[in-house]
């Protein structure tokens, strides 16, 4: 375990190698509450050189007034003989005289950080950083971890490049970036999503912290802006577009977004009206849609994947669940957790872990829509997860075991008012033409 961490932009090391500087100081920030040192520049003789990569570190917490202290002489560095370099790297103590003569550093009882690099021409091997202090006429040495930082971000180094490349072509709209929607947005950005549009009118409150992607530093900010910040914080490359309108009262603006033909819409809102609005418009405009959320105080999660015209929509499933009334074993047992709800809102006291599970399933369902050749379709379009074993409700909301997933194959309903068969009185009519006639007729009376 290291005694702390030193973060150094690689270009500073390159400058040292290029100019063959023997010694100098890094300037930068130090987190006073923790042993984290952030080098932002070089001081050699009287010369100051800033790092090209310092912008990547501009937002580090150490830069916050309360937490950081800018230091012109943050960490001293030395170029040392190769044999000494290897020796220091592997021991915890050495005679004071050996250390001071090799480094020309005067030791003191106070620990100080020191960065050492090898005296090998053109060598840009990672330096080592140590915390060193005088202890009974010996140099006591503790290693610090060194993180070398590239100038430009490479956030997906640990993800398959073919996946990142394929996802870079995709565009997703996420409606509702509360706890669940924000997780899904980050999940998709984290696998290289090319364009992400987020829609939510809400702002972050203190009571959101316990399960949100961000906390007190974003209090009061619009959630869509918090998502933007978190994506930037992780240096993810998604092109991000944000809107703070309400998808129900501004359904026309929502349809305007769908005109741009995203590959997928994900609805993670917490009201029935908003889910129905998103579902209806996505189906009518032929955009695949995923509706996800939790019920019953987080004990139940649901993820519905809608392929317009091919799989049941949200209204089909609501009809199907209502139709199971007649098949309930007991009239006293409510068939679904939807029944008996007095509220339009699906307000939830779900745990952070409940949200994470449902967000994970929603993300996986999204990947099967976006990259069907790479991610197999889920076994059924409607997935229901139960945190606890529970027989309070009828299928698919019955769970024999905790953390159980049910896959429910609902049917496309001919009586669905969104995607079902048109009523007989419309047979033979060209509704697009007839609607135009209606609008033209009333245009005469327009106010």
């Amino acid at each position, binding site marked *: 375990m290291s005694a702390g961490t030193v973060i150094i932009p690689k270009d500073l090391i390159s400058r040292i190698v290029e100019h063959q500087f023997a010694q100098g100081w890094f300037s930068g920030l130090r987190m006073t509450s923790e042993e984290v040192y952030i080098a932002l520049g070089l001081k050699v003789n009287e010369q100051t050189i800033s790092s090209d990569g310092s912008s990547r570190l501009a937002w580090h917490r150490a830069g916050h007034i309360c937490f950081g202290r800018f230091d012109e002489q943050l960490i001293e560095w030395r170029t040392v003989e190769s044999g000494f370099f290897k020796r220091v790297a592997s021991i915890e103590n050495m005679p004071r005289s050996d250390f001071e003569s090799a480094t020309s550093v005067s030791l003191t009882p106070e620990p100080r950080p020191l960065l050492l690099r090898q005296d090998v021409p053109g060598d840009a091997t990672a330096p080592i950083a140590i915390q060193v202090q005088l202890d009974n006429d010996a140099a006591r040495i503790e290693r610090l971890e060194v993180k070398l930082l590239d100038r430009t971000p490479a956030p997906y180094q640990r993800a398959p490049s073919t996946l990142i490349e394929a996802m870079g072509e995709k565009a997703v709209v996420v409606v509702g970036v509360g706890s669940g929607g924000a997780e899904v947005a980050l999940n998709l950005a984290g696998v290289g999503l090319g364009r992400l549009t987020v829609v939510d009118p809400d702002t972050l409150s203190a009571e959101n912290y316990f399960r949100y992607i961000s906390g007190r530093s974003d209090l009061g900010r619009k959630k869509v802006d918090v998502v933007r910040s978190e994506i930037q914080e992780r240096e993810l490359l998604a092109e991000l577009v944000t809107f703070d309108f309400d998808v129900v009262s501004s359904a026309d603006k929502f349809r305007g977004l769908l005109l741009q033909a995203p590959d997928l819409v994900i609805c993670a809102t917490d009201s*029935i009206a908003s889910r129905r*609005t998103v579902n209806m418009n996505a189906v009518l405009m032929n955009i695949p849609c995923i509706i996800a959320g939790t019920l019953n105080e987080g004990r139940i999660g649901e993820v519905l994947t809608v392929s317009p015209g091919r799989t049941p929509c949200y209204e089909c499933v609501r009809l199907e669940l209502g139709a199971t009334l007649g098949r309930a074993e007991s009239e006293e047992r409510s068939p679904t957790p939807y029944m008996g709800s007095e509220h339009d809102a699906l307000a939830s006291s779900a745990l952070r872990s409940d949200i994470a599970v449902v967000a994970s399933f929603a993300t996986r369902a999204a990947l099967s829509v976006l990259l069907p050749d790479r991610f197999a379709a889920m076994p059924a379009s409607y997935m229901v997860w139960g945190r606890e074993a529970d027989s309070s409700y009828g299928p698919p909301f019955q769970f024999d075991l905790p953390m159980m997933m049910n896959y429910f194959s609902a049917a496309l309903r001919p009586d669905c008012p969104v995607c079902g068969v048109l009523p007989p009185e419309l047979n033979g009519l060209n509704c697009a033409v007839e609607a135009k006639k209606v609008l033209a007729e009333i245009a005469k009376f327009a106010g």
Partner: protein
Amino acid sequence: MADPCWYDVFPARLVLECLRLRRAAPSFRLRKVGTYLYWIGDLTERPAGVPPVPATVMIGYPQAFPAVPPDVFLVSPEIDPNEYGHTWHRWANGKICLVRPSHWNLATTADEVVAKVADWYFNYSAKKAGLIREMPDIGRASLPPMDSQE
């Protein structure tokens, strides 16, 4: 390009609304303000013994329609603005509450809405006249036979 209205993406529903309401209540007229479509028409049924004051109602289509219920307002006669809440089945902004939002059936068309508003007006009139103590949640209050006007 302007943002699409609900009837741009769901023309069949607009046609259905027109077909059904014009058949059920031919006196209602469809009008438009900007992109907002609404019906306006008169309801005349009142309980027997209550002065026959017709009500003019507006049934408007919000942009999220039919995922959400239409907006229903009484244009006339004027109602006391303090008469709202569950007692009066009316929201504080004056909108008449015909169904709990989470119970809204997307298949409900304007002709059914007019029938519900007619019930509401009947019940409201009966309560104002002291003929009933509470307006029922569903349907029309039971009263002695009355003469209805077309």
